[in-house]
């Protein structure tokens, strides 16, 4: 299991810049799946459990998720300069690519094959995001919330968002605050418990 090996860390701000450039350029239909694959599985800057925790914060704070995430990671290792290096990596090359595409795509956008290619890429991207979520479920095993309660929270969130189409903000405030409250109770219980197995 990856958790058992020691973690790495970015070597420098230049390393941050290029790492985020490379993963941004792979992120078709959203960068999230690539972030998980690159930073957790390949570079091993964080464990799956740490990734879920950091992603939770990036998701809940306002603003684009991956932008928030790269600011957090960059800031953690190299302060404000690190955050800006990661941000620049995330934005510079993709912006240039997007402008080239916008100029080129303008002339073919109405053609059937171009529309089809977008549909196909969109379908794959949906699968990548869902798989990223599924792959992170084992990271909950070490979570003091407990696997049963975690499963209930996940099921409730999925039903609320996917099937009942509740607005995200209400899901976060409702289910999210209940979940955090429960986690707080569990942490308190852990802290007060006699240290049976240190």
């Amino acid at each position, binding site marked *: 299991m990856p958790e058992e090996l020691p973690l790495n860390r970015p070597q420098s701000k230049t390393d941050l810049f290029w790492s985020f450039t490379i993963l941004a350029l792979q992120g078709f239909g959203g960068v999230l799946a690539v972030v998980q694959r690159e930073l957790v599985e390949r570079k091993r800057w964080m464990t799956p459990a740490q990734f879920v925790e950091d992603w939770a914060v990036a998701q809940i704070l306002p603003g684009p998720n991956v932008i*928030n995430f790269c600011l957090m990671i960059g800031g953690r290792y190299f302060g404000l300069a690190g955050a800006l290096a990661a941000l620049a990596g995330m934005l510079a090359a993709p912006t240039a690519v997007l402008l080239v595409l916008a100029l080129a795509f303008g002339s073919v956008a109405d053609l059937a094959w171009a529309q089809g290619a977008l549909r*196909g890429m969109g379908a794959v991207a949906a699968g990548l995001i869902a798989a990223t979520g599924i792959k992170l479920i084992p*990271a909950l095993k070490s979570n003091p919330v407990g696997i049963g309660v975690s499963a209930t929270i996940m099921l409730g969130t999925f039903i609320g968002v996917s099937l009942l189409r509740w607005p995200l903000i209400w899901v976060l405030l409702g289910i999210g605050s209940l979940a955090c409250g429960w986690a707080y109770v569990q942490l308190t219980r852990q802290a007060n418990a006699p240290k049976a197995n240190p």
Partner: protein
Amino acid sequence: MILDLQLSVSDWLALFNHFLSLSLLAVGGAIILAPDIHRFLVDENQWLTEQQFSSSIALAQSAPGPNVLFVGLMGWNVGLNAGAGLGGGWISVALSALGMLISLLGIMLPSSILTYTTTRWAQKHRDNRGVRAFKLGMAPVVIALLVSTGWLLTASHNDPMRDWPLWVLTLVAMGLVWRTRIHLLWLIGSGALIGALGWV
């Protein structure tokens, strides 16, 4: 399909101001702001055509990089329209770049400052029980949100007779990412090819 606009300095400021004011509302990603941006740019001010609006979103979603770049592309198009009003050429390029800069800066500045300061504070107090409880409690919620995002993207194609090959493609991609270490670019490339050939 390009508009002829005459934008004053106060118009540019209004554009900047609009994105600034939306920034802190973007909980869960900038894409949830799309309806409000549409109201402002297309309906009220008519700085952007309907087609420019929807193609900006489609392109940024399918291009590599953060999806928030759709906002920058809209700013670019507003600048393009303004440049056409001034005769086009290099003025268009300059105004497009200005539009893109203003939009991206506006949409990201407030949220980035908030994120940076909050997460620095949380990092400093990472052993605090409240901070730990927040991260641990939110973990299952966030995992479910990821799966939900995949679900919602798939469910937006809601005609089973026509869309079932698309669903199969999503499921196969999901299985491959979950179970193998195949490079993600192969999957995206295959999706594009399958789509271009008209199989989905």
